[in-house]
């Protein structure tokens, strides 16, 4: 365990992340231009989507695909309810903020997923290509759960005129958000073009993948380092939630994945999906639909607490447990 964690720690990915956090903390003027940063983020989505699709094509669509996607749906809808209950019980956050945060934990962090796939790749651990489809499925349902939780808990909810949960436009924006479209589209293209397509794309999306991820993590570190000061605004009970919620999510994710019969690699990734919190799609949706929730809280929690936790501690931990589960099932 410790061995794996240390092996994980001395990877360039993690170390560049740490370098970023430190540089951000000490207010170095090191900064990656916005456009590059956005470009790298699109790269990671395209690459992970395409490779998932190509793997799916190679493996042949298994019968468990439908089951997996349903599980993804359940997780994304369900985890916010649990998160909301924990927040209301263990912290002093009001219902709107609790609902907004809870939506983040039903959704996923693409970079955490990408880092986990890199972690598995390093160790030669295979995973089911359609887990990438689960990623895409899990991005948005949690938003609906979060908004329902906010509405149900509103004192004036009963008598007020019924406005739609998500305005038509907000729904559009969420469903057609760039990351969803790019991941799903790349997955389909990878699946359609298969091995030949992968051969064409490989020099860009396979060989340099982990190095690009390292650079992106440097950038994320920089941004997180600069925001560390906002911890105070969040409060320790809420920070604690950002640490135990991923572990609980991962446990549930592992149970689901094990029940479906995924491999150790697949289980690890599902655990990561359940454990991670969105920091792009959901914050944008919450800012539109729950404007009273404080973005400084949910962004800081998702980005500066849960993301580093999953990246450094979570991934090796979930993998360790996934292997144990796989051995038990296999044995």
């Amino acid at each position, binding site marked *: 365990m410790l061995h794996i964690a240390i092996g994980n720690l001395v990877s360039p990915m993690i170390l560049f992340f740490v370098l970023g956090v430190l540089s951000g903390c000490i207010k170095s003027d090191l900064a990656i231009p*916005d456009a590059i*940063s*956005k470009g790298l*983020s699109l790269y990671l989505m395209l690459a992970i989507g395409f490779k998932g699709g190509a793997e799916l094509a190679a493996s042949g669509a298994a019968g468990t695909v439908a089951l997996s996607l349903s599980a993804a749906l359940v997780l994304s809808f369900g985890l916010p309810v649990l998160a909301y209950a924990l927040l209301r019980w263990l912290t002093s956050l009001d219902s709107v903020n609790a609902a907004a945060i809870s939506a983040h934990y039903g959704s996923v962090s693409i970079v955490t997923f990408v880092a986990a796939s890199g972690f598995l790749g390093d160790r030669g651990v295979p995973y089911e290509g359609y887990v990438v489809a689960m990623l895409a499925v899990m991005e948005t349902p949690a938003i609906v759960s979060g908004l329902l939780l906010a509405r149900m808990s509103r004192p004036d909810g009963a008598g007020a005129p019924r406005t739609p949960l998500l305005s038509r436009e907000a729904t559009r924006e969420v469903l057609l958000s760039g990351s969803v479209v790019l991941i799903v589209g790349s997955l389909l293209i990878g699946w359609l073009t298969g091995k030949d397509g992968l051969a064409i794309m490989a020099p860009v999306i396979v060989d340099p993948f982990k190095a690009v991820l390292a650079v992106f993590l440097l950038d*994320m570190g920089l*941004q997180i380092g*600069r*925001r560390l000061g906002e911890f105070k605004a969040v409060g320790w009970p809420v920070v604690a939630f950002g640490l135990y919620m991923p572990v609980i999510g991962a446990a549930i994710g592992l149970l689901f994945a094990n029940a479906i019969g995924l491999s150790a690699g697949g289980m690890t990734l599902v655990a990561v999906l359940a454990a991670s919190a969105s*920091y*792009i799609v959901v*914050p*944008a949706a919450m*800012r*539109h639909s729950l*404007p*009273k929730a404080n*973005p*400084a809280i949910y*962004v800081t929690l998702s*980005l500066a607490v849960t993301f580093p936790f999953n990246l450094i501690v979570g991934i090796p931990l979930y993998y360790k447990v996934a292997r144990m589960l796989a051995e038990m099932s296999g044995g």
Partner: protein
Amino acid sequence: MQLYRKKRIELVVETARAKAIIEMIDATGAKGYTVLQDVSGKGQRGIRDEAHLTGLFRNTMIIVIASEEVARQIVERSQVLLENYAGIVALSDVEVVRDEHF
């Protein structure tokens, strides 16, 4: 050269709200507007800059030149739209040449 007196409205609003504001401006019958993406700043809601990963902490600047009547409407309606959002609105006098543009 004949000059016409108009109002210039300058809004700095959080980017998440820029679309709603622009739709409102269109709805008032203003004949045009100019948008400056990615402006940073400080105000009641603290420092706002291009924390690009989320984009939630960015500002957009919108400039409208319009008749006094339309300007007044834009200012008023913006107050409703900016409840719970970061944003400021300022009004000033300008002169323009081609009346029909504004």
